[in-house]
C-alpha cells in the first residue's frame, strides 16, 4: 500500500451498550506507516473502539475499512488474518502456557501442517514446528524475553507480561498493530525503552501502529498523529503539538479549571 492511502478508515462509527453510547459517531483515517495515538480519559471509549476495529464487538452503526476491505461483518480471526493484531489493556495472555507457547500460538496463520500430520509427526511438521519455535524465540529476543521462554506466562512480572503481549501480537506479522496501553504499570525507564522499541518495530517490520496510552509524554514523543476521544466523541485530531494546545483537550483530559 502506498503511504498516502489510509490503511484503516473509521467512518461514523457508533457503539451503544444498552443505553450507554460508548463510541459516538467517530471518524478518522490512519495512514500507512504512521504511529497513531488514541488518547482520552478513562472510559472515553478508546478500548471499545479497539474492540470494534478488531471485531470483538460489532459496531452499532458506521463503516470500517481496512484498505479496500470492509471489516464490518468479519469475525476477529478473519480480521487477524487480514493482518491486524492487537494487545489488550488488561492483559489476556494464555496464563497457563509457557512464554514460548504464547508466541507460538500467534504463529497460527503461518503454520500449515494439520492435525494428522503433526500427530503422525511427518518431517514437514517437525520442520515447521522447529521454525515456529525459532521465529518465536527471535521475537522474544526482540522484546527481551528470550531468557524466560520456558516460564509459565502467568508467573511473569507485570512489565514482562506487557512485553509478552507485544511479542505475541508481533508474531502474527501484522501490517496494523493496535496497542492498548502498552506501557501501563511500567516505570519511567521501562517506558522509555518501550517507546524506543515501538519505533524500532515500526521501522523494522514496516508496520502501522495505533496506540492507546495514558502517559502523555510517551504519546507526545512517539506518535505522528493523535486522536483524542472524550465521552465517545472525537474532540481533536492532529499532530501532537496541535492537540496538546487544543483547549477542548485540556479541558477534557487534564480536567483543567
Amino acid at each position, binding site marked *: 500500500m502506498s503511504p498516502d492511502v489510509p490503511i484503516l478508515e473509521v467512518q461514523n462509527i457508533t457503539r451503544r451498550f444498552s443505553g450507554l453510547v460508548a463510541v459516538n459517531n467517530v471518524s478518522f483515517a490512519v495512514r500507512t506507516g504512521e504511529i497513531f495515538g488514541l488518547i482520552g480519559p478513562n472510559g472515553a471509549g478508546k478500548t471499545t473502539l479497539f474492540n470494534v476495529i478488531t*471485531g*470483538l464487538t460489532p459496531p452499532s452503526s458506521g463503516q470500517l475499512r481496512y484498505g479496500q476491505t470492509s471489516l464490518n461483518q468479519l469475525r476477529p*480471526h478473519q480480521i487477524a488474518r487480514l493482518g491486524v493484531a492487537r494487545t489488550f489493556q488488561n492483559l489476556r495472555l*494464555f496464563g497457563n502456557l509457557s512464554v514460548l*507457547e504464547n508466541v*507460538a500460538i500467534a504463529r497460527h496463520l503461518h503454520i500449515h501442517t494439520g*492435525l494428522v500430520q503433526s500427530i503422525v509427526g511427518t518431517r514437514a511438521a517437525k520442520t515447521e*514446528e522447529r521454525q515456529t519455535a*525459532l521465529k518465536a524465540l527471535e521475537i522474544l529476543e526482540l522484546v527481551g524475553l528470550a531468557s524466560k521462554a520456558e516460564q509459565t506466562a502467568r508467573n511473569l512480572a507485570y512489565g514482562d507480561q506487557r512485553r509478552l503481549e507485544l511479542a505475541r501480537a508481533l508474531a502474527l506479522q501484522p501490517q496494523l498493530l493496535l496497542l492498548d496501553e502498552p506501557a501501563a504499570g511500567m516505570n519511567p525507564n521501562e517506558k522509555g525503552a518501550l517507546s524506543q522499541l515501538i519505533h524500532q518495530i515500526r521501522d523494522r517490520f514496516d508496520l502501522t501502529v495505533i496506540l492507546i496510552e495514558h502517559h502523555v509524554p510517551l504519546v507526545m514523543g512517539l506518535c505522528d498523529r493523535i486522536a483524542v476521544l472524550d465521552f465517545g466523541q472525537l474532540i481533536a485530531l492532529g499532530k501532537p503539538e496541535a492537540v496538546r494546545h487544543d483547549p477542548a483537550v485540556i479541558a477534557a483530559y487534564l480536567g483543567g479549571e
Partner: protein
Amino acid sequence: MGNFLDSYGFLIVSTFWGALLGLSVYLPLMAGQLSLASPGFYALGGYIAAILSTQVLPHSGETYPFGFVLLEMGVAGLVSAVLAVILGIPVLRLRGIYLAIATIAFVEILRVLALNLEITGGAIGIFSIPQPFRSPVGYLWIALPLLVLTMVLLYRLEQSHTGRVFRAIREDELAADTMGIDPTYYKVLSFTLGAILAGMVGAVSAHFFNTWNAKQGTFDNSIIYLAFVLSGGSRTFVGPVVGGMVLTALPEVLRTIANIGGIPLWLGGFLQAMRLIIFGLLIVLGSMFYPQGIVTPELLNRLKLAFRKQPKRIST
C-alpha cells in the same frame, strides 16, 4: 496369574473403558468446552455395534470375527463424528454450564428415542450380542491397544500446534480469536474427537456387556465421566486416565476389601453395605483435597525431574 485375570479381567478391562471415556470428556475440555455428550455417543456406538453384529454382519462358528468388531468401531466412530459436527456447530456457541446442559439434553433425547424406537429394542434392548473372545479378559486385545494408542495420540496432540491451540482457546477464547484462530473450528474439532472416541468405546462395550439397552449412556454417566476427568486432573491427559481407572475400580476394590479373609464378618458386611457411601465420601473428600485433581502437569514435571537428572531442553 490365570486366576487373577479370571477374577479381575472384567474389572481391569472396565477400568480401561473408564479411562477412555474420561478421555472423551477431556478432549473437548482441552479446548475449554464442558461437554457432557459422551454418554450419548457411547450409547449410539453401542447400538450401532449391537445392531450390526446381531442383524447385519453374518458369522458362523463360536467366536465372532475380531475384524468385524473393528469394523463396527469404525462405523460407530464415523457416525459419531458426523453427528458431532452437526450437533457441535450450533451447540458449541454456548458457554460453560449452558453447554453442559445442552449436551445433557442431547443425551436425554437420545435415551428417550432409544426407548421408543423399534430397532433399539426399547427397555429390553438388544441381547445375545456375539462374543469375539472366550472371556472378558480377551477384550484386553482391544482395550489395551486402544488406550495406549489414544494416549500416544493425545500425548502428541498436546505437543502439537493443534493441542496448543486447544489450550489457548481454553485459556482465553477471545484472545485466541484475535490471534487468527477460528475458535468454532477447533471447538468442533475437539468435540468431534471426543465423540469418535466415545462412539468407538460404546461399540466394543456392546460386545463386552453381551447386551445393550437404553440404560447405557444416561445423565448419571455424564456426571460420572466428568468426575473421572475432574478428580483425575483436567490439565493433562494422564489425569482422566488415572481418574477413570481409579473411580471405575474403587467400588469393586471396596467390595473386594469386604471379602478379604482376615476381616471380621461384621466389618465385611458393613463394608459391602457401605461401599457406595464410602465411594461418595471419597469423591467429596477427593474434590476437597485435590481440587486440581490427582494428576497435574506440575506433578508430572516433578516426576520427570525425579527420573531425569537434567531438566528438558527447549527444542529449538
